[in-house]
């Protein structure tokens, strides 16, 4: 049964990849890559069960972590054009360009 599920996930990944290549705007592509990452987590899990090695779930945990960080990093870069801008937790009055240099 998990073999069928793995094949279905592969088809889903292919369709998402089509959207990532077609996607008219940047946000469509980021969305497709993010969704593709979630499906990859599921696929690694299924593959581990198909091959009888559920230890592969460690890789799936890692992939879930990296997927989130990469989405946020891409969006941050395209918003501020830099990775050095702190993401403030409280409302700031300064504009993003002014606060760029003071902290990492």
């Amino acid at each position, binding site marked *: *049964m998990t073999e069928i*599920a793995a094949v279905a*996930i592969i*088809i889903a990944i292919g369709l998402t990849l089509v959207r990532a290549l077609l996607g*008219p*705007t940047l946000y469509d592509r980021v969305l497709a890559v993010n969704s593709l990452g979630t499906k990859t987590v599921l696929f690694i899990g299924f593959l581990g069960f198909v091959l009888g090695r559920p230890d592969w779930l460690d890789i799936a945990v890692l992939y879930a972590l990296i997927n*989130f960080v990469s*989405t946020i990093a891409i969006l941050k870069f395209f918003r501020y054009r830099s990775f050095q801008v702190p993401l403030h937790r409280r409302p700031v009055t300064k504009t993003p360009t002014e606060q760029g240099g003071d902290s990492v």
Partner: protein
Amino acid sequence: MSELLDILMFLKPWVGGILCVIGALLALIGSIGVLRFPDFFTRLHAASITDTSAVTLSLLGMAILAPNWLVVFKLAAIWLFIFLTSPTGSHALANAAHTAGLQPVLGRDLRRPDNREEEA
């Protein structure tokens, strides 16, 4: 009592496998939605099917198939992590697109907004 246990052990691979297949099919439906929907904001909704129900059902099926409790814990960790991060990622995407001035398709007749291409 032991007969009941036997029946449960017989059903276990089938229930787990069917849950996995349903989850994978939901992920497939989510990607079909991501391909078909007319603009970015509506595609976000299709992607959230994958993030919620497909993930939950697949991981539940894998947890039923799992050989020991360590694997169940790892599946639970993945599930918790995806449920904490996927709304944050979706919100960041939607907020970034909205701030950049991407106009959505609105209404039942799906009126096309006049998006300027350089914003994309």
